[in-house]
């Protein structure tokens, strides 16, 4: 067994022209935009799809996406393959601390009559952020006995199924202390399971952030985490998504973006709120 070279034909490569054609299709379908530097990522993540639909190269795959009667479901499959991003618990903890120590007390004061709190993780991927928020809520000891819901949505059906399952491998714990691991997870053969108490706060839905009609299912929310999601959108889709977030937030509600994101180049009515450890956005109290 001396010959260890890969058997079979070489992996198909995605040339710039077909990358752009496929990218344009995806953008038209869901507003998600991939820059030219994402060509290799797209090639790698869609390579399996060629074999599944039975085409030899990306030129034929593009034609499949354009002409086949199964094109729509295949575009969905492609979007799923391209948007599955790994994340981990307690990511960007400074922002989570800002949520727990500064935003949460304010929301608790404001909502003490109706005893209800809704947090939305927009574009929640495999659920780590949703469960993290739930854990932060439990840690804070606030809103005890309230109707508390942490809702996560994603365009990718597969990641939502994974999120509901609530079972995670080691790489999801790169920023989780052993105390938190012991408190909020139980170890089983197939991985670390989120405890029922945490799961009880978490809700998931397969919703496209740009689907205005269906996104109304989220209801009105007090806080939105939308971290590292808007970066995938083109300007039009980003503007639409921001409008949706605005629409879902209660007056005075909070919007938390990823650390490298800002609304500085967007037309927006959100106010900037400077917290001790973070800069976040807020829907003005006077807005309706």
């Amino acid at each position, binding site marked *: *067994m001396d*010959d*260890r*070279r*890969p*058997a*079979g034909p070489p992996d198909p490569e995605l040339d*710039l*022209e077909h990358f*752009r*054609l496929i990218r344009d299709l995806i953008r038209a379908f869901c507003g998600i935009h991939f820059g030219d*530097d*994402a060509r*290799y*990522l797209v090639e*790698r*993540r869609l390579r*399996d799809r060629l*074999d*599944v639909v039975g085409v030899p190269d990306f030129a034929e795959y593009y*034609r499949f996406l*354009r*002409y*086949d*009667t*199964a094109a729509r479901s295949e575009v969905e499959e492609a979007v799923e393959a391209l948007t599955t991003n*790994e994340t981990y618990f307690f990511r960007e903890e400074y922002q989570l601390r800002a949520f727990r120590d500064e935003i949460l007390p304010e929301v608790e004061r404001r909502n003490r009559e109706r005893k209800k709190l809704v947090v939305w993780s927009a574009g929640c991927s495999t659920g780590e952020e949703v469960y993290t928020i739930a854990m932060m809520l439990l840690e804070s000891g606030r809103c005890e006995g309230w109707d508390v819901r942490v809702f996560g949505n994603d365009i990718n059906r597969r990641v939502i199924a994974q999120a509901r399952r609530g079972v995670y*491998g*080691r*790489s*999801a714990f790169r920023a989780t202390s052993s105390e938190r691991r012991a408190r909020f997870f139980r170890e089983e053969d*197939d991985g670390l399971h989120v405890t029922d108490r945490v799961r009880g706060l978490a809700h998931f839905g397969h919703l496209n952030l740009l689907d205005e009609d269906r996104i109304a299912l989220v209801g009105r929310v007090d806080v939105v985490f939308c971290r590292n999601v808007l970066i995938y959108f083109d300007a039009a889709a980003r503007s639409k998504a921001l409008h949706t977030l605005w629409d879902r937030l209660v007056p005075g509600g909070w919007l938390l973006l990823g650390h490298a994101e800002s609304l*500085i*180049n*967007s*037309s*927006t*009515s*959100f106010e*900037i709120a400077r917290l001790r450890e973070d800069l976040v956005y807020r829907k*003005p109290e*006077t*807005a309706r």
Partner: protein
Amino acid sequence: MDPTVRAQFASPDPEVRRSAIADLQGRADGSSVAFLVAALGDADWRVRKEAIRVTASFADRAAVIPALVAALGTPENVGLRNAAVEALTIVGTPAVAPLLGALPAMGADTRRFAIEALGEIGDPAATSALVEALADQEPNVRYAAGEALGRIGGEAAAQALLSVLTVSDDLLRLAALDGLNRMGAPVPISVVAPLAERKALRGAALTALGRCPSGEAVSILSSALKDRSPSTARAAATALGRLIGSSDDGAGEATSRLRALSSDEVSLLSDLARSGTEEERIAAVRLLGAAQHPEGLAALVEAAGDDSIVREVERALLVWGPAVLDALLVLLDRTSSRAAASLIPLLPALATGRDPTPIQRRLRTLLSTDEDGLAAAAADAVGRLQATGEIDGLMTALRRGGPRTIRASCRALLAIATRDRAAVRRAVAGTPLEGRGAEAVCEVLAAVAVPEDGATFRAALASEDARVRRAAIDALATLGGPDAAEAIPFALADEAPEVQATAARALGRIGGPRASDALLAALSATDARVRAAAARALADAKEPRAVPLLRERVRSEDGLVALAALEALAVLGDASLGSLLVEALGHADAEVVKQALRSIGALREPRAATRIALCLDHPSWDVRSTAATLLGALRDPESQAALTARLATEEDSLVTSAIAEALGRLEPGNQRHG
């Protein structure tokens, strides 16, 4: 302007002011300009942003550009000046001449803002004015000119920036270095090496050293990895990573330096590989791979979970070679599924020269996992090893796995069959062609089939699963003979269009009068996919009777059918296609237009270039790009004017480079005359 709108502009509530501006979008007239420019200096950032957006899209540029240029000279309102720069940047090239015209009369402070705007616009028409500004009496103007030239780029800008690297003004040298770094322009090591000694210039100089392929640059950058300043060490790592990724010069020096890295340096690179920008992560992965320090392996393995840089990880591990294998096997259990799935297919290459048994044992376990990606990766690796001993495991995975595992197991069995056909046949023959993975079993059986298997495939044509029926058709076509010629035409009556299309393709492969008759009839099938498959199959079968029918199909509104007909006619060599192709250039589907262009190019008729040039103004960028490429290939000197004219207005980068390439081929000496 309506008094209500005036009142809204004067409202104390910023949201009212912002909404009033947003409402002007598309409705603003000359009387609105003063309000818009005033709003650019509003105290609230949201109002300013809205005003920038509306002002920059203002149709009457002759009215708005002078107002924006004038707004640069308002030292009392920095917000207004910055907003004016931003709006002028969005306006772009039309603002360049007015800015250049106003430059000489501007005060030093205003010149700085105008130069900033010229840099942001990035139009080379400003280059000579900016080169002049490098010698401006006012230091801030000189620095702004350095930055602006870096943004505009080009040879003249690079030369000008290089020339100021030897002046004594560190801030100007920093602006020049930053500009050269932004452009990616080469800088002589003799010039940049001394700059790396100066604290203020060190970071930018180290970045520039990343473009100086030499042992000396490697030496300076390697030493800088130990720098106390984390940002300097990061800059050095990024530059060194770029250097060793782009050139072999200094490779020996780099290897010996990197193999001697300390734990602290490896820790820095590991952090960079985990949390740096993409460029930093790529550089760190390269350096960790070259360093081959055991403490750096964990970060490399984690980085394999990032599809943007996994290719670098693969290279790094392959360079590391078999020595990394044992540690890698341990880390596979601890890393993310995506990273593990990326690394598993590398195992066979890393096991070269070693006993493959431990790897095969691990792959066997992985093949049976529930995680589709991991099991598929294991199947891929088994295929690369062509490990006959794993055939049973692959068969099980093929029957129980997820979709990716089934396909990967199928590929692996096909790969093993090229080495040991009999062993694969023993495993697969007699396996029922039904249930999960049956279509893959059928495909494998087809690869190792004997004539007697024809009956099995014919029976599979009755499967409830359309995928199995398709696989059986392909298998019969591979087997050939009377079984195929007899059975496949019936499949054109299958209830599933995808099965009909597969049958059409198969008939094209086997050929013969009966197949051709069936395919000619299938050109009128209800489903476009079947019609398209039949058109292409008739070309495969070299069937001349198809030509008149295919010419009709070129006029089909359905893009798929028109495209297939055009492709088939090109294969069949229809000599009288000319006018039909010109007609197809007007088809609504860009794919059809591109195929028509290719066919026109291939026919090389006298007017080919003129006809192709018509599509240089097509609304689809891919059509324009195809037209430019074909014109370059034709090398007809008469195309030059059309290409040059299009280049002046083309905004798509891919089309621009296709036109530039075509023009290059049309240069004297490259042209084809007559």
